């Protein structure tokens, strides 16, 4: 509740809704000036990096998946790529393509979830997808159709959409025959028009027009839209191997949050996720997606975080086209997985989770047991950037009611599709105005 002593005011959101996980926001204003702003992630810590020590590297993809029920595939992919580097594995090109398909599935389901269930209600004055369905059943049903195909892809390769079981170091434990994927291809072609319509739908939302000074970061690959491989790239000139993550980024802890903050060394907050990827890789999305992107009338690249929802919808379309491409060319690999010998060493990898670059680093002993693990999830990396966006909004709060200010903050935070369970190391809003 706002305290109205003199000209001081506190805005507090005790539990950020329509986000995955638990976080709060506290903003303290005095005479219209921002005194303090903090995004408190109170999602309880689960200590993955600690309990992974002593576990077998071959168990790791099943364990790191449990960090996040929304993006388990990305966790599995960063983990297996890190160990494959460590064990010196060469991955069969067909396996590599299947992994792109696998991640396409996750992007589609996670993005469709965020667009329709978490974000769209903000722009249409609803409290949930259920009330949105009363108003615009067609859009909701369209979103559910898109989401469903994403889940179906993940299940085809991993048995189920949440914590799938098929990924392992070296490849998959089982790969499908070509005929087993035929139905998937038909389903994808059926939702392609839905995905184009979805881009148009979100690009007509009343998106606030702002421009911020943002450093966008994502992987970049010489010939394809980044998913499992590439170099780290940024809109302010970073171009480096994921092995050099620590040379460019630093994590630090703040007393009010269970999530570590990240910054670009010597600069400051940075932005991960679909908008960063589209901004840095539009030339890799192919002519058809690019033309849909141009039709929205939104300039790409751009520095308006509110266009993130459109970038997300564009990635859904891209992922559908990419999945169809993989399926058309698919021939099963000679073996589902490459065999390997464990050894001691250090392996690092970044893959593009739906919410942005996900960094893993592992150190093993000669028996392949994990000696140390480091996991830097996208929401934790975005956290400082989210706070920067909220700070920029603060001057507007003075003329707003508490409910309006809270809503503004929530919309600004949801631009990042924060996955708080991942980052718990995330929202309660508390604005204190004096």
């Amino acid at each position, binding site marked *: 509740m706002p305290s109205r002593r003199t000209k001081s005011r506190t805005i507090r959101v005790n539990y950020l809704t*329509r986000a995955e996980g638990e976080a709060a926001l506290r903003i303290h204003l005095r005479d219209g000036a921002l005194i303090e702003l903090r995004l408190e992630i109170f999602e309880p810590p689960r200590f993955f990096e600690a*309990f992974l020590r002593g576990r077998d590297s071959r168990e790791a993809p099943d364990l790191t998946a*449990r960090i996040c029920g929304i993006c388990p595939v990305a966790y599995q992919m960063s983990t297996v790529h890190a160990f494959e580097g460590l064990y010196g594995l060469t991955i069969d090109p067909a396996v590599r393509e299947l992994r792109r398909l696998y991640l396409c599935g996750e992007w589609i389901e996670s993005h469709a979830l965020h667009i329709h269930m978490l974000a769209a209600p903000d722009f249409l004055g609803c409290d949930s997808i259920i009330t949105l369905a009363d108003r615009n059943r067609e859009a909701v049903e369209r979103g559910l159709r898109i989401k469903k195909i994403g889940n179906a892809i993940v299940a085809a390769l991993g048995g189920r959409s949440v914590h799938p079981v*098929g990924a392992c170091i070296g490849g998959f*434990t089982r790969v499908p025959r070509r005929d087993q994927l035929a139905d998937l291809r038909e389903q994808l072609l059926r939702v392609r028009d839905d995905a184009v319509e979805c881009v148009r739908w979100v690009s007509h939302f009343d998106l606030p027009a702002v421009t911020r000074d943002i450093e966008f970061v994502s992987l970049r690959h010489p010939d394809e839209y980044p998913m499992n491989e590439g170099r780290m790239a940024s809109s302010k000139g970073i171009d480096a191997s994921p092995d050099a993550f620590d040379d460019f980024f630093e994590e630090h802890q703040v007393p009010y949050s269970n999530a570590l903050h990240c910054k670009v060394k010597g600069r400051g907050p940075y932005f991960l996720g679909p908008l960063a990827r589209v901004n840095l890789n539009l030339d890799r999305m192919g002519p058809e997606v690019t033309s849909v992107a141009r039709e929205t009338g939104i300039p790409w690249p751009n520095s308006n975080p509110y266009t993130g929802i459109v970038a997300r919808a564009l990635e859904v379309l891209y992922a559908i086209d990419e999945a169809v491409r993989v399926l058309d060319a698919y021939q099963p690999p000679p073996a589902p997985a490459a065999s390997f010998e464990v050894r001691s060493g250090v392996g690092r990898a970044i893959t593009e989770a739906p919410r942005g670059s996900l960094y893993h680093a592992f150190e093993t002993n000669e028996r392949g047991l994990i000696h140390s693990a480091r996991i830097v999830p996208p929401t934790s990396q975005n956290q400082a950037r989210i706070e920067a966006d909220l700070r920029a909004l603060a001057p507007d709060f003075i003329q707003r009611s508490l409910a309006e200010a809270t809503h503004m903050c929530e919309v600004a935070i949801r631009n990042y599709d924060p996955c708080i369970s991942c980052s718990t190391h995330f929202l309660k809003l508390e604005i204190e105005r004096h």
Partner: protein
Amino acid sequence: MKPRAAVFKFASCDGCQLQFLNAEDELLKLAGQVDFVYFPEARSRALEGPYDIAFVEGSITTPDDARRIIKVREESHYLATIGACATAGGIQALRNWADVEQYRRVTYPSPEFISTLSTSTPISEHVRVDCEVWGCPVDQHQLLAVVRSLLSKARPVLPAYSVCMDCKRRGNVCVVVARGAPCLGPVTRTGCGALCPAFNRGCYGCFGPADDQNMESFARLLASQGVTGDDAVRRLRGINGYVRPWRETADAIAADKK
């Protein structure tokens, strides 16, 4: 009147509550039958209790959560735990064998900012639980079956026999017999549809212990496959490692080794 349902989250990955949202074909129908008046992940408007049905995801790992679950129980007529975390403590219960101070130091540069309990415990260690839905994640069909039972005022009944039964029905080749792969299937509750064996790998116990498991015999089976000592302990101390029969067997193997 539609029943008032609530979805509460404790320490978890959100994957089990996501299974409601993943019910794409049934979601709108479900919403016609049950009013999710408290479901922060999916709805901004949160209504106060009491609730007819509470679905609880996640384990108890902080002093605040230990207090919050008591309030949840008081406000809820029927309480169902969903998933391995709420039902068995989850993978984060690995801390129960470790020094949590050390865990804090490993994960955070300033461990003093972090409030946590030394254990991760299932909801049933804190309050009375009316129904336990196992799985990591819970199976959507089981979850919806529980909702349908409750709507018709019937007690939900979920199968508790082992994965082996469904593995046979599915026509999988047994990974233990054919390949000597370590597999928790014989002692694990069905629910996943025997996924791992269908994917050429041993079960790793997502659904917790079956009712008819024989841990002594299972430990011998593992040993006969050359899975002993730390390796056997790791297999049992997994997603549902803190559940009693598996915990006791793993502890015994660990003690033997010493």
